[in-house]
């Protein structure tokens, strides 16, 4: 009788201890922090913001050639960052599988190897590619330019926040 009550009382703790023992010590659920990525994002976001300051108010397609190399540099930099971010191995373990099962049961998307920062870097590159195309073809009007800048800032915030968070 007494034994039964005690067993029931400590059951959750026993389950937790058992799970910790069989799942194997420390877990890695997210990729490693990479100082080189953070430094590159900082450098290229500064370059991007300087570029937006230079073209503030809009552009004419006639002067596109003076900006072409900056576009190319920014596109190349963010595509390269996407590759660097994706190159880190994705931790695959029991804990992630269990979390994905729970997410699926709740009807939510599972956690995949697509890092949010890599996705954001790709979107930033796509935004500069589109901006370059519009600038070359018809020039950038003030509100269109503001919208390009806004889109890039939002994706930058997502990437920088995630990458900084990886520093445990």
């Amino acid at each position, binding site marked *: 009788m007494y034994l039964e009550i005690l067993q029931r009382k400590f059951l959750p*703790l026993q389950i937790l201890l058992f799970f*910790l023992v069989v799942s194997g010590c*420390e877990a890695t659920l*997210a990729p490693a922090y990479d100082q080189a990525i953070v430094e590159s994002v900082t450098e290229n976001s500064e370059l991007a913001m300087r570029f937006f300051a230079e073209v503030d108010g809009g552009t004419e397609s006639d002067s596109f050639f003076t900006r072409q190399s900056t576009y190319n540099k920014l596109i190349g930099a963010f595509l390269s960052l996407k590759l660097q971010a994706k190159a880190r191995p994705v931790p695959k373990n029991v804990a992630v599988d269990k979390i994905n099962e729970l997410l699926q049961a709740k009807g939510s998307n599972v956690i995949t190897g697509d890092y949010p920062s890599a996705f954001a870097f790709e*979107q930033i590159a796509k935004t500069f590619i589109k901006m370059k195309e*519009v600038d070359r073809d018809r020039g950038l009007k003030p*509100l*269109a330019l503001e919208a390009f800048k806004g889109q890039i800032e*939002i994706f930058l*915030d997502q990437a920088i926040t995630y990458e900084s968070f990886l520093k445990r």
Partner: protein
Amino acid sequence: MNENVTNIISEIKDIASGILEKDISAVRGFSERQVEAIAKQTVLIQNGVKNGDIDEDLREFFLDGLEAMALNFVNTLKGILMVTLEKLWNALVNFLYKAVGVVI
């Protein structure tokens, strides 16, 4: 309740609170910034379409962009949650292993 169990519960609560409080405050700041920025971006696109600065082609591009940024906002939160879970998990494992005298 056994004094040891009470101590263990108290330690676990302290460890969890310490990690969660710090991370939740960072997540709250990020969420507020993102929600405000996405709302401003939506209004900016509306105004651009109205005054003609944003044509049909660009409107489609920016609408796709809004969808992508909303999706990635949620995925960033999920990614951050994984880091928090990892910190929480490892701190608890360390504590529990030490409590039962296992060296890891």
